[in-house]
């Protein structure tokens, strides 16, 4: 299937950990406000914060509500979960905790699994009846609900009730978020905040193949092409069969590059485009301070021409766009692909499961002579939470978010939390900053250089981080610690289940923490009026043309026709509108 494979997989556990790390990026806690409290994540004591004194307001962002309030929601059904003893869907530890400790009772207006919850949200918006709050809306859905006049202006509630920790995450990207969720002075949604690490596309490469063929890691595009061709033709796995490919391209309906609509995903060519200073799919500066669309620039033409020739040469897998290319990774036939840091949970995880000796390593490909990788940044606001204009107790929603940011382990037992997973928390969304990664690497460095586990734990806790990931990694890391290849880890026996977490964090996140890169962001996420009418068509045209050029179905001159058509069919108007909006 054209699903971005395994992306979903054990990513639940992964993101739970990420949230723990990213989420604990602040120092304020309700008890005492100014000192950094030692967050004892191991404890199960539920802190009834009505006894605390918040120096800011008389409103306690983690305070129990005076009376029982009921909130309706669109509930997500996790179809694969085994509930802990005595708990069930709609009656789990989180829901009980919210009711008992905070006087917040949750009812389900409707229930849906991942396959149809989005449609049910659509239906709710279309019939003009939203539950009190909804989590996980796409931008389109949020806008539709807004246009339909169904949403509450939560700017006041946010100011009053959001805890400092919560506000800090929002303020971290205030300009971006304001642009997305505020309108005429009112705030109509709470955006998620995904870690930037997710958007840094990483060049995953089979180090063991490089070793077998006695090649070094490519540091520029030419070397990349040479290595890819070598992978495709010189039997790097030594099995005597001509069954390997170099760079693995996107699957059917996959993306050639990240753009303003999508989230991060694998098997695209952003790093290659970057070497031509080309950033298709986003608005870039034309050098004179004006916004232009990256896909129509001459740099993009050059990049496309190059990629097309790489496809011709056999450097890129031939089955690109017409087959489920991720299978090449899982079956260990592909040697290079561009993906996320958490691939070991997904495609690389599959690859390793099928052959425990594979040595995947991530790198950044320098975009130019200065050695810096110009990475396309993404939109941290991937999903939105909205509150219905008819909601009687919007503060309850904010408080639920505060609880989440404060660390669920303070309120439910560790065991429950592990079994249920964070995803089931009614106000779950990825909402954090990136500190966690850097602190983790500091911790690992400290440990490798001789500090004891306790010392490192203390350091982490001082910075409001969980110790789980660190513990996980060191429990399977072998000496010499400097060896980050597959041989530097012990995943035998019970430890096999740790491959995803340990390898993703310890190895996959390496480029994010340590390599030389700069993010290039789109100048705006604005959707202008003409864009609403024409953008889908234009996008379509773009992808079709580019796909055909790369796969040789059309010559590079098709690009010029595309640009003309693009400008004519709305692109010119849209560009003008965008430039206006940025003034």
């Amino acid at each position, binding site marked *: 299937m054209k699903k971005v*494979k395994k992306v979903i997989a054990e*990513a*639940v556990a992964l993101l739970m950990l990420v949230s723990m790390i990213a989420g604990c990026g602040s120092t304020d806690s309700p008890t005492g406000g100014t000192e950094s409290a030692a967050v004892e994540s191991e404890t199960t004591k539920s802190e009834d914060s009505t006894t605390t004194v918040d120096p800011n307001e008389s409103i306690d962002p983690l305070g129990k509500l005076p009376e029982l309030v009921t909130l309706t929601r669109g509930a997500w059904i996790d179809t694969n979960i085994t509930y802990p003893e005595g708990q069930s869907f709609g009656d789990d530890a989180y829901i009980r905790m919210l009711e008992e400790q905070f006087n917040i009772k949750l009812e389900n207006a409707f229930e849906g*699994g991942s*396959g149809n919850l989005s449609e049910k949200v659509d239906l709710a918006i279309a019939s003009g009846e939203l539950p009190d709050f909804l989590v996980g809306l796409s931008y389109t859905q949020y806008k539709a609900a807004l246009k339909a006049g169904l949403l509450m202006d939560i700017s006041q509630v946010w100011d009053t009730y959001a805890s400092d920790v919560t506000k800090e995450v929002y303020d971290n990207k205030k300009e971006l978020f304001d642009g997305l969720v505020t309108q005429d002075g009112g705030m109509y949604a709470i955006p998620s905040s*995904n870690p930037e690490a997710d958007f840094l596309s990483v060049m995953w490469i089979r180090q063991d193949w490089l070793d077998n063929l006695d090649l070094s890691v490519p540091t520029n595009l030419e070397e990349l092409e040479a290595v890819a061709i070598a992978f495709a033709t010189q039997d790097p796995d030594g099995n005597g069969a001509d069954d390997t490919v170099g760079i693995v391209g996107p699957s*059917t309906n996959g993306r050639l590059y990240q753009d303003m609509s999508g989230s991060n995903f694998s098997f695209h060519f952003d790093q290659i485009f970057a070497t031509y200073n080309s950033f298709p799919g986003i608005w870039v500066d034309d050098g004179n301070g004006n916004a232009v669309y990256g896909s129509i620039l001459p740099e993009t033409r050059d990049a496309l021409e190059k990629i097309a020739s790489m496809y011709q040469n056999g450097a890129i897998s031939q089955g690109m766009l017409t087959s489920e290319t991720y*299978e090449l990774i899982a079956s260990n036939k592909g040697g290079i692909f561009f993906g996320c840091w958490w691939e070991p949970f997904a495609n690389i995880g599959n690859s390793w499961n099928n052959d425990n000796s594979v040595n995947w390593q991530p790198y950044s490909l320098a975009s130019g002579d200065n050695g810096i990788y110009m990475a396309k940044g993404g939109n941290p606001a991937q999903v939105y939470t909205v509150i219905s204009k008819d909601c009687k107790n919007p503060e309850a929603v904010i408080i639920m978010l505060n609880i989440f940011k404060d660390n669920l382990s303070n309120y439910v037992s560790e065991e429950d939390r592990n079994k249920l997973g964070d995803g089931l928390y009614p106000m779950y969304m990825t909402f954090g900053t990136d500190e966690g990664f850097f602190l983790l690497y500091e911790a690992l460095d400290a440990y490798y250089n001789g500090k004891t586990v306790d010392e490192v734990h203390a350091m982490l806790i001082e910075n409001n981080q969980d110790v789980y990931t660190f513990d996980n990694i060191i429990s399977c890391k072998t000496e010499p610690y400097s060896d980050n290849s597959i041989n530097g880890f012990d995943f035998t026996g019970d430890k096999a289940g740790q491959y995803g977490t340990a390898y993703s964090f310890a190895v996959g996140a390496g480029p994010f923490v340590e390599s030389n890169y700069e993010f290039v962001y789109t100048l705006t996420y604005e959707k202008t009026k003409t864009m609403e009418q024409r953008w889908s068509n234009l996008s379509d045209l773009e992808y079709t043309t580019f796909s055909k050029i790369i796969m040789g179905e059309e010559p590079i001159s098709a690009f010029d026709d595309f640009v003309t058509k693009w400008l004519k069919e709305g692109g010119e108007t849209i560009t003008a509108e965008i430039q206006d909006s940025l003034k």
Partner: protein
Amino acid sequence: MMKDKSIGSKIFDLCNCIVLIALTILCLLPIWYCLMVSVSSKAAIEAGYVSVYPIGFNMESYKAIISDSVFFGAAWISVQRVVLASVVTMVILVLAAYPLSKAKRQFPGRNIIMWIFVFCMLFSGGTIPWYLTLRSYGLIDNVWGLVLGGGVPISNLILLVNFIKNLPEELEEAAMIDGAGPWRYLIDILIHLIKPVLATILLFTIVGHWNDFFQGMILSSKLKSYPLQTYVQQMVVSVQNMSSMSLDQLERMSNLNNKSLNTAKIFVTMIPVLLIYPFLQRYFVKGITLGSVKG
């Protein structure tokens, strides 16, 4: 059937047999493949290793299904739906098809009625008004909503009308002469004459209701009201969702990609329809209708 002894005839028989068997194998292969996938290991499936025999054999998926109480709850709802719908549909369709099969001079107005039905088969207000209508009747989260919500299955009606029309008129004339009125004729005689098409429509009705997931999705707000295919479908994500999904949404679909589980579920849901067909096949036997009446 008269036996033909010509060589041409025998060659034809042989080829016929071969062609049909080849077709059958062609149809069997994907089913077999699905079965293999449902008992193979995830990593092997993702790598595309599985084809003719399972790799990493395990019954995990089936175990998961058996122990999933929601699955059986949803199956029960589907069973109720199918049974009720079969009864209601068959009765109402037969009642309606008989008069509609009459010619205009026998039943003035039948043309208009027929075309009204055809019109309604083609024109619809769309999903939202339909949803709102059913909501106004209080049929959300209600099995009757599933049974009746789809409205009259007009193409089945047309099938029935067409079939009845093709019956020789003498049969009814004979009955009328004997003093039977329309009701008598319908219940005592006509029903037996149209057994093959009734079996066909019954099959279509059962299959249609059993397989439907869309109506089930719109009409069920609570998990416990989901019919089976809706429950299963929500775990098999369509392509579009995946590629434009945010990380958050993707992470929630931890097992959507579990091809093994998905195919196992599909198999389990396919079993009833598999069993129905052989059961109804006995009605597709030649000559049973007219022969019996002639006697």
